[in-house]
C-alpha cells in the first residue's frame, strides 16, 4: 500500500519510520532538505524535496495511485488544504491531517476531512492521567 506523508518533522518522520518498517511503500515530502536527516539510515521509502501544495510535486510523489495521504506540517491551513487537494483533486481513498486548533479541526471533520487535533487528544489524555 502506497502512503504519502507531507511534512518530515518529528511526527512525519516517526510515522514514515513506522509505516516503512511495517512494509508500506512510503513517500515523504518536505520543503526543507535537512528535515530528511530525521529519517532512519535504513529507510526504504522515497523523500521528495518540494511544496506538498504543488500538484507537480504531489504527482511526482505518485499521488495518483496512493492509497493514503497524511499532512503533518506545522501549518494547520496548509495541512487542511493539502488534505482537500488529495481528497477532491486526486480522490485518494484515505486522507488525514493534523490541525492544532481544536475548533478548526472540528469544522473540517464535519466537512468530511479526517482531522486530528493533538491539542484535544493530549488535553484529554492529561485529564485522564490526573483522574487516574
Amino acid at each position: 500500500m502506497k502512503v504519502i506523508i507531507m511534512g518530515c518533522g518529528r511526527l512525519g518522520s516517526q510515522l514514515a519510520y513506522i509505516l516503512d518498517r511495517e512494509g508500506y511503500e512510503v513517500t515523504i515530502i518536505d520543503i526543507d532538505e535537512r528535515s530528511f536527516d530525521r529519517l532512519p539510515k535504513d529507510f526504504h521509502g522515497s523523500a521528495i524535496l518540494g511544496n506538498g501544495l504543488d500538484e507537480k510535486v504531489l504527482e511526482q510523489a505518485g499521488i495518483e495511485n496512493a492509497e493514503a495521504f497524511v499532512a503533518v506540517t506545522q501549518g494547520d491551513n496548509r495541512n487542511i488544504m493539502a488534505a482537500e487537494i488529495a481528497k477532491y483533486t486526486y480522490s485518494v481513498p484515505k486522507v488525514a491531517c493534523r490541525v492544532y486548533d481544536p475548533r478548526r479541526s472540528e469544522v473540517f471533520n464535519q466537512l468530511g476531512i479526517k482531522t486530528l487535533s493533538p491539542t484535544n487528544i493530549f488535553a484529554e489524555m492529561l485529564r485522564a492521567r490526573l483522574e487516574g
Partner: protein
Amino acid sequence: MYVIIVGGGQLGVSLARVLIATNLEVLIIEKSTAIATAISEELGPIVLKGDGCEVAVLSEAGTSRADLFVAVTGDDADNLVACQVAKHMFHVPHTMARVRDPRKEPLFQKLGVDTSINTTELILERLKYEILPHAMLRLLRLRDYEVTLVSTRVPPKANFAGRAVASLPLPPKSKLLLILRRNIEPISPQLDTIVEQDDTLIILVPAQDEATLAAIFEDTTSTSA
C-alpha cells in the same frame, strides 16, 4: 451590509477604503499587531487583531451576522480555510477569496468559495496585453452565465480585415458588442459594418470558446521576442 475582510495588506485595506466610502460596515481581521495598529490609525477602530481562520476570532468578529466575507491574505491555504470556516460554521451567505496559484481555483470553487479571484491570472492578462498588443484580454468573467467579456485587436493582414462583421469567423453564440477605432466614436456594429486592421473588438464569448477566439485573432505576422 456587514463585510468582513481577512488580511490587512494593500488589497484588504484598499477594499476597506472603498467600502467605507459607500457607508458599508467593514471589519478587517489582521494577524500582525503592527499592521493592525497602522490600519486603525488611518481608518479608525475597524480592525480586529487576530487569525481570521480561528473560530474564536471569527465569533468575536460577529461573523454569523456578516453578509459578505472576503479573504485576501497572500496565502491561498489561509484564504481557502477562512472562507470554509465562515461558510460552514457561521453560514455567511457569500464568501470571496483571493487565489494566487491559478491551479487552485477549481478546488476553491468545488469547496464552496462563492467567488474566487485569481490575482495572478488578472495581472498576467494585463502584462500579456501590454507586451503583445494583439493578445486577447479577458475583461470580465461572468461565471453565472458561463461567458467572458474580452477585448481583442484585429491583427495586421488578418484575412477578415477590411470585410464586413458578418464574415468574422467568431465562435457560435459569441457576440461582437463594440468596435473601437482611434479618433472616432465607438461603433455599435451591424452585420455590414466593415472591420479594419487594428480595430479593438469588445466581444462576449462562451467561456468554453475563449481559446478558440484567442486563436482566431492571433497575430501571425509578428515574431515573438
